[in-house]
């Protein structure tokens, strides 16, 4: 019997020698990673950028581990600082295609200030924020994105805070592209990342994700499929939602779609770095 080795079509973009990955069973990050790689592959195929010009930067957290598995120039930087690292890379060598991947804590919590200013500058990088609504790697503490009322290990009586609506924040600062996706709709993740990678200026994709092991277990939904179905029920797809529909609330659910899509000059053009 001949056993042929199965090769995944995305293996060429993966450091397969580093598998298996560290993500828990039922984690949504793998869905985001493969959707992102499909989008990258399409853009490479179109000649928008070359494989060797891709730089993927992560900070610290579950999502920020993604660069360890990617077969590009990759960075596992420090907590919250993936965006300024990426800014330095892009400005020093504008031909590079710079992508930041990170969780909600990394990007919107500790790194929130950098996110704001990169968006305000319309800096020519793409940020993909996987939002699992919790600090998962450290065991389930409160995130700035944890919906009000939910249990975390540091809000044992329920989260008294209002969560940050990152889509609205980034849109308010003038970024060229702002979309919200969900791991329950992988094809849309691919579409939005694909769009983001083809644009000038600051492009941002939030991906709502499921973390059954930490987030789910703490709110009483520890079954991965059940949590996935729960999120799917809460997600409504709209082609071009208005920012008023970007409300961010566990009870009323989430609208995913492309919130901002415009073509203002990016930072490099404003600075005179594009010829």
């Amino acid at each position, binding site marked *: 019997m001949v056993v042929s080795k199965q090769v995944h079509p995305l293996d060429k973009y993966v450091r397969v020698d*580093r598998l298996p990955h560290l993500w828990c069973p039922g984690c949504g990050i793998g869905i985001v990673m493969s959707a992102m790689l499909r989008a990258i592959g399409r853009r490479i195929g179109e000649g928008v950028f070359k494989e*060797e*010009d891709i*730089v993927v*930067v992560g900070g*610290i957290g579950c999502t920020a581990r993604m*660069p*360890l598995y990617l*077969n*590009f*120039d*990759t*960075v*596992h*930087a*420090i907590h919250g*600082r993936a*965006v*300024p*690292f*990426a*800014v*330095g*890379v*892009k*400005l*020093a*060598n504008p*031909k*590079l295609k710079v992508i930041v991947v990170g969780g909600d804590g990394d990007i919107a919590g500790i790194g929130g*200030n*950098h996110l*704001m*200013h990169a968006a305000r500058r319309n800096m020519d990088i793409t940020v993909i924020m996987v939002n699992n609504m919790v600090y998962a790697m450290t065991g389930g503490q409160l995130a700035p994105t944890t919906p009000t009322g939910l249990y975390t290990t540091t809000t044992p009586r329920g989260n008294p805070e209002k969560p940050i609506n990152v889509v609205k924040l980034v849109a308010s600062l003038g970024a060229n592209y702002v979309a919200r996706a969900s791991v329950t709709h992988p094809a849309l993740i691919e579409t939005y990342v694909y769009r983001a990678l083809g644009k000038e200026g600051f492009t941002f994709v939030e991906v709502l994700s499921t973390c059954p092991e930490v987030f789910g277990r703490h709110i009483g939904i520890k079954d991965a499929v059940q949590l996935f179905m729960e999120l799917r029920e809460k997600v409504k797809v709209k082609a071009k939602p208005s920012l008023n529909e970007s409300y961010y609330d566990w009870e009323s659910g989430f609208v995913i779609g492309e919130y901002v899509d415009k073509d203002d000059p990016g930072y490099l053009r404003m*600075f005179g*770095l594009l010829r």
Partner: protein
Amino acid sequence: MRAEYVTSNIAIAEGAMASGLKFFAGYPITPTSDILEYLAEELPKRGGVVIQLEDEIASINAVIGASWAGAKAMTATSSPGYSLMVEALSFAIITETPLVVVYVMRAGPSTGVPTRSCQYDVFQVRYGSHGNYELPVLVPWSAQEAFDLTVKAFNVSEMLRVPTVILSDAMLAHTWEKVIIRNPSELKIISRRKPEVPPQEYMPFKPGEDLVPPMACFGDGYKVMVESLTHDERGYYSPTTEVQERMIRRLVEKVRRNSRLIIDYETYFTSSAEYIFFAYGSTARSVYALVKELRREGIRAGLYRPKALWPFDEGGLKKIASEAKRVFVVENNVGLMYKEVAQVLRDKEVISVGIIDLDVPSPDRIKEVISEWL
């Protein structure tokens, strides 16, 4: 080559441009802001990029990113700003990222007196980051030396793949002096070594004989992994004692074994000196004046002035001080480097002359303190 009348801040900016600076990120802070302003004006004319970022944390992280994108990169700050940078500095150390930080000391703690001088941060600059590491720190005493040591800082940083600090202070920052500004062609400019093997054979953290790994940058086709976790030669996370020990020892040893490239000092009237003064940076200017005065009075005084504060030059100091009866450590703090000197010169009488002065301690003030020991 041209002679200009400039401050140390401007001399540093010129030294950086002569060294091939291509990226500068910074955040305004007294007494350093004019480095950012000067470079914002000048560097783009030479094909470089300058950006004012949202804080010091962003600045140093962007500089690390720019270095990995292939640029010679620098940031400049003062004492509170360096406090914000030390986490990322540790990241630069473990990822062996060449970059230069300009550190202009101002009087603390906290906001202190932002416009005035001190030498309080000689330990913070060296030990402020977490982890176990070596960090070269160069300490100029004049605008000319600020230019010269900036060129050296880039060379050290590029050669050893280690962040390198230029430690200045508020007095030097804004003192105008004549400086010979040399063109790149008149200087020895060193750039990071590139890999000589093809990508499939390249390991980003496999060192050469000098313990320094050749550096492939983003876009070179080598698919490097820049890893803040403890990593092996491939850049892969390896949480074992074996890899941890190998990495830490190499990060430390690559600087120690190559310390001759960093360490430098000047001496004044030290042969046959009965009293040796140890002083650095702006304070050494007053000590120099005092030593000359003492010599005129017939007292056999001499000055040893390190140009690199870290790594600490044990050998040079021991040699110079071997015949001395007493050693005075004069500094604008309560006596910090004194501890280092006393430890090296265990068999000598070492006296701490720590003076707190928002200007450079005057020769008279120093003389008043030491006269009972002469």
